[in-house]
């Protein structure tokens, strides 16, 4: 039997799709019947969605960093080959 306390513990697993289908069904039922559980469920879900959207935003490696990195590694490899 799932209650609010149990729901709090299971939300991440639910949204990461790591729960058995029967437990998911119990959660869905609880959420449809209890307003407090529904608020927590919906706001937790939206939080996870917003986090995923933010994570998907790539921060580009600056061009000068990219060039410097490859030149630096080339020098290191050349030095290693000389040893």
């Amino acid at each position, binding site marked *: 039997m799932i209650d609010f306390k149990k729901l709090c513990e299971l939300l991440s697993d639910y949204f990461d799709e790591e729960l058995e289908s029967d437990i998911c069904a119990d959660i869905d039922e609880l959420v449809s019947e209890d307003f407090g559980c529904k608020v927590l469920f*919906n706001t937790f879900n*939206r939080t996870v969605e917003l986090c995923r959207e*933010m994570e998907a935003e790539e921060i580009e490696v600056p061009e000068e960093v990219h060039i410097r990195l490859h030149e630096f590694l080339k020098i290191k490899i050349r030095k290693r080959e000389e040893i």
Partner: protein
Amino acid sequence: MSVSDEILVRKSQQGDYLSFEELVKRYEQKIYNLAYRIMGNKEDASDVLQETLLQALRKLPSFKGKAKFSTWLYRIAVNSCLMRKRKQKKMDIVSLDVPILTKKEDEIKRDLGDDWSKSPLATLENEEVKKTLSNAIDSLPEEYRTVFLLRGLDGLSNQEVAKVLKISLSAVKSRLHRARLFLREKLSQYFREYRSRA
């Protein structure tokens, strides 16, 4: 079809620079993103990127392939970030007493408030929401933030994050879950305050 990491690693170990360069091209963006999010600035992120790939180059001959190359590389990157943070003495003191992270279920229920999930304001296009979320992520204790950021990197699974950080799967799940509850709470606070301003 692209060549697998395993083949590129093997060729790199045999001294093929082009294979190593291909590995660098594959991962430099991901490492930079991770480092930027952990360190919070471009300068440190650039330094961590360079340190990580230099260390990878040095240690590659002894890489046995027991872990995935990416897992091994991310571990080097995370360690480099954490070492740098310790040096800068910015490391948070991780305490299980951080209030929202240890909130009990009855406290969560009491503070639920409105369902803001369907609000048109609940989007990253809303700069205030984006800033609230970003600040909340930054304010997570280091061990929670590292798990959270790794989980968002390159679709890493909980198991892979556990391998990168050498911690148990249950520790990863627990930290990720608490971090998400914390972020939800911070967003709820924002919407409560927004409503009271309106």
